[in-house]
């Protein structure tokens, strides 16, 4: 099976974020990492390839820094990578990101495309499904298991509140992958070495520009959310904090 994995570089989970001068985005001088569900999507693609053979290709969009995501994917076992490299990709909405990806892979023939179920920055949870519609492929979301069948694949969808559902579907298809579908591997030293010689195709903005248009939605402003709750800060050395908390538990909450 030939599998494309869409990956995104996002701010590190505990990185302190600051607004930039536009007030509509964050300052870019933070640490970055792979969007977590995308790491699970890559792992699942590698496992499918190990079972059924084929090829795993990682794709991302973003400035030069985003290449790190692809290097990690190659080091873990992806065969090649595609980088839509331009700072402008950061500001695209899900609709245009999907259009750019579709344009970048128009000469390829994949059986499956994986994305993480959503990103830690925008959190749209849309790009994979939009990509499926643009390609005219079926899709399934929030996937926890993938088995090859005679006619295509059988996937396990996670529903809410502990429910699941198996879905049979034909190929090619797009799947959005849930965190926890598998156990992530680490890159090996040999893998990291080999990654340097693996093909990485760069796609300039100009090559996909004709496919993308104006964003269909616009971030007017970004701000620290207004608190709806009054929060009391408990401060001091640990022992004192513990005493204060127990006092609250006993005399205010009456749970002790």
């Amino acid at each position, binding site marked *: 099976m030939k599998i494309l994995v869409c990956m995104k570089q996002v701010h590190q989970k505990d990185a302190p974020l600051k607004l930039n001068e536009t007030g*509509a985005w964050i300052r870019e001088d933070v640490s970055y990492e792979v969007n*977590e569900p995308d790491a699970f999507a890559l792992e699942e693609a590698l496992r499918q390839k190990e079972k059924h053979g084929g090829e795993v290709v990682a794709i991302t969009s973003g400035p030069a820094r985003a290449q790190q995501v692809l290097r990690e994917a190659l080091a873990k076992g992806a065969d090649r990578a595609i980088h839509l490299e331009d700072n402008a990709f950061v500001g695209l909405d899900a609709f245009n990101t999907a259009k750019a990806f579709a344009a970048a892979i128009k000469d390829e023939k994949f059986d499956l495309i994986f994305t993480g179920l959503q990103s830690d920055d925008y959190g749209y949870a*849309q790009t994979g499904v939009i990509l499926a519609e643009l390609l005219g492929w079926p*899709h399934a979301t929030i996937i926890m298991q993938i088995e090859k069948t005679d006619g295509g694949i059988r996937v396990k969808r996670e529903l809410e509140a502990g429910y699941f559902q198996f*879905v*049979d579907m034909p190929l090619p298809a797009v799947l959005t992958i849930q965190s*926890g579908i598998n156990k992530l591997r680490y890159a090996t030293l040999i893998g990291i070495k080999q990654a340097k010689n693996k093909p990485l195709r760069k796609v300039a903005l100009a090559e996909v520009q004709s496919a993308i248009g104006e964003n269909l939605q616009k971030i007017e402003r970004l701000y620290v959310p207004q608190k709806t709750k009054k929060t009391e800060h408990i401060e001091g050395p*640990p022992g004192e904090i513990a005493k204060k908390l127990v006092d609250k538990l006993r005399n205010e*909450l009456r749970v002790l």
Partner: protein
Amino acid sequence: MPDTILVVVEQREGKLNRVSWETITAGQAIAAATGWPLEAAVVGASAASFAAEVAAKRVAKVYAVESPKLEPYTPDAFAAALKQFLTAKQPKLVIMPHTYQVRDFVPKLATAMGRAVISDCIGFKYEAGKLVFTRQMFQGKFAADVSFSSDAPWFVTFQNGAFRGDKAEAGAAAAPVETVAVNIADGVIRNKPQEVFKEAKQAVDLTQAEIIVAVGRGIKEQKNIEIAKQLADALGGDLAASRPICDSGWLPMDRQIGSSGQTVAPKLYLALGISGAIQHIVGMKGSRTIIAVNKDSEAPIFEIADFAVVGNLFDIVPPLIEEVKKAKAGG
């Protein structure tokens, strides 16, 4: 044709999803702000049977969008049915709950119509004739006001709990119901869904717990779960976790709180090393009192905490266990 707001309510397995009432409340609020009329739609093989329940609320009209091919749910059939219906109706704004089912089909539907979805919103503002929708970004660290720059219909989904379902106003009289039969051609539906099932019985029912001690990534290693357990035991509470902890196998899945786990509302929710991603918060924000311990002072969990402790949980939990034990012993 005036600008109309259309709420698409959700039914699953022959039952109206309760989150639908929240979406009706959202629709009523937007209608009040904009002056646009509010209508509702139910989609399904026998949607008309749910329409009466929706028609009791203060909406101008309810559409039952029906086709035998809408059962069982598939994204192909739902997108095809709603595209037909919406292309004919041309509402200005289409709102839905941000459920797993809606997430599955609404980006497809909007794309098929060349439109956009502002997803997972928590509110809206109507400023100088312009509608903007508020959504969380960067895992809740920021809020964003987002507007549409595309033509209508505009698609918006609202996060579970963003509006109060019990505030959905009843109408003076039942709204008229119109059944709309849609035609879904053969070959449109490509997926074959099997029966919905629940994985093994849920061994732990946290929904009844009065005190919950929950751990997140900040616990760092599996062996550290033990101190959280000791605290839970000392308090006479239950141990729970955010998703990454259960994904790592450090605690079983049935102790997971959040959109994919259990939704709880205990008297006390003590969050240890939980950053407060949206998916976790929707499962516990109804707790009466929330105490959060996290070393990151900007962690979103503090937004909803009643008591905040900015610090290392490994410094704070051990003395807390001792103090709780002392208090319980009558000290």
